[in-house]
């Protein structure tokens, strides 16, 4: 048993730049967390299996599968860590979108949909259009969406004290 873990550790060391190994470790941590937490739930009750029964078996199985996956990834390096994320313009495009999403989600409850939505759209348009075109389009689309979703589709959107 010990030799299996030693061999696995050795392969993991070889796979420092292996995205599959790192993904496997993240899934393993997740599986161990669920497995550990499942012990706080009853495994069985008077009537039969309890709320901890299914999670314990599932997470136990996931731990075993993940170890196999880490082993497999370490053995056959398929994707290196540098292949996982893009570089250059593609990376900055993706980061500006994610940044826009984070800003939107953080401020929308205070600023209202039109301001937060305009910022999100502007963050995505600015890389391909002139700033005034990007700004105009962002505000126009945000206002249009507020009207369509709120007035036509009856979906409640977050708005500021001015109602937008």
């Amino acid at each position, binding site marked *: 048993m010990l030799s299996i873990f030693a061999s696995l550790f050795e392969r993991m060391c070889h796979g420092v730049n292996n995205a599959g190994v790192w993904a496997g470790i993240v899934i393993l941590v997740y599986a161990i967390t669920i497995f550990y937490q499942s012990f706080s739930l009853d495994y069985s009750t008077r009537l039969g299996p309890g709320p901890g029964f299914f999670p314990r078996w599932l997470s136990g199985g996931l731990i075993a*599968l993940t170890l196999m996956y880490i082993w497999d990834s370490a053995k056959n390096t398929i994707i290196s860590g540098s292949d996982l994320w893009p570089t250059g313009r593609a990376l900055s495009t993706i980061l500006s979108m994610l940044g826009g999403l984070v800003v939107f989600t953080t401020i929308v409850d205070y600023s209202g949909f039109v301001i937060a939505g305009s910022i999100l759209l502007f963050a995505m348009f600015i890389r391909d259009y002139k700033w005034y075109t990007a700004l105009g389009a962002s505000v126009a689309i*945000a206002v249009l969406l507020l009207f369509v979703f709120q007035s036509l589709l009856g979906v409640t959107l977050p708005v500021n004290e001015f109602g937008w």
Partner: protein
Amino acid sequence: MESFLPLLDGFATALAGWNLLYCLIGVTIGMLVGILPGLGPTTGTALLLPITFSMEPVPAIIMLAGIYYGSLYGGTITSVLINTPGEAASVATCFDGYPMARQGRAGTALGVAAIGSFIGGTFAVISLVFIGPPLAEFALKFGPPEFFALMVLGLVMVVGLMGKSIIRGVISAVIGLTLSLVGMDPISGALRFTFGELHLMEGFDFVTIAMGLFGISEVLQGMEMSMHAEKPPKVGSLFPRREEWKPTLMAIARGTGIGCLTGLIPGSNAVIPTILSYTVEKKMAKDPSRFGKGAIEGVAGPETANNAYCGAALIPLFTLGIPSSPTIAVLFGAFIMHGLTPGPALFQSNANFVWSVIASMFIGNAILLIMNLPLARMWGKIATIPPKMLYPAIVIVSVLGAYSVSGSVWDIWVMIVFGLLGYVMKKLDIPMAPVVLTFVLGKMIESSLLQSLMYFKGDFLGFFHRPIAGTLLALAIVLLILAVVASVKNKRGMLADDAEV
């Protein structure tokens, strides 16, 4: 024949003003989703699911189903005109559709595809009409053990067919199941894995997970690649030459059969019947060397097969409550969201709903035939919308959709996290479809397993004492072994991707 009268009632409901309008809206959006590269039927239905929150169940499902089968029509147009499949199921159409367009026969390719899609789609719906009720009646005899065994078989087929590695497929499926554990336990009511977070008390919402995994991850991946719009060629005559009619109709007939049979298999996707159909047509042709250079059967067969598949894939959903593909899983989620439980009881408890949706599919296919034949060129122009305009639109609609789930930014955060997760999974070649399929079935699998074990007094072998459950589980074990063997021998190929996304 006993299906005929309820079907007529269904037509009466589906043709009622608003329902007809929603059918038209659904198939039109579906066409757009199919045409626009980067958007597939799963992404399209997932993104637009929240819009149906405030709608009645019948128009909501009519519209979402319309998006599903409409997208398969739409994908053809870009495949033929600009050699860019709008969705994965139209890849095979590029092989001969684009060469036909370069020969000035784009209209014929589109015409044959539209006719084949109509015939295949309509035949699949007719199959649903006749197979659905008896299958549902048979399934009514199922108890928790049979349902558990059936769901296990379905999941084994999903992980067996999807993804290039069986380990990754099973990991993906188990992650989906563990995500479904979060929140209240269906049997005891105990809270699980909430970590004190109030938002997790009701578990993760299917809509946010689907929009993140399919919508946001698709945008992230699309942003990496720079796509350029191409000017579509002239459409020309829409019908085949006189001598081409016979091989075309034969290809359509074979495509219908292949599509209908594949649709019944859980874990399949719309790409499998198209590739199968293309291979069959090439094998049956007197001169296989024509294929790849503009053979009309190479367009007619696969296009028919993908639409026949689409209708037939609804049979396991309506009759057994088993989603057979990611898009059907989104429709499954929509059923639940609107208070309907897909499965055998649906034909009895909500007969009008079922027959209205089925009738709407006949109507939708007819609308799509009209939309495609004379308007093909107009749709082709839409394909030239640049991704730099398309992706911001998808992101903002996703954000609105996620927010509308519970009126809280929590769901937007969840969507962003699952979007990043989906993006990484794509890069690592871990299939996403099993996550969604097992997540949507998770609570049902757990409750049927626990109820069965209570009935068997904890003896797992009890499943094998019941003929149907035992046979299904044995079949699942055999399939799993075969999938592992295929994985070891590295025989899993191009049919195994998250193709329908």
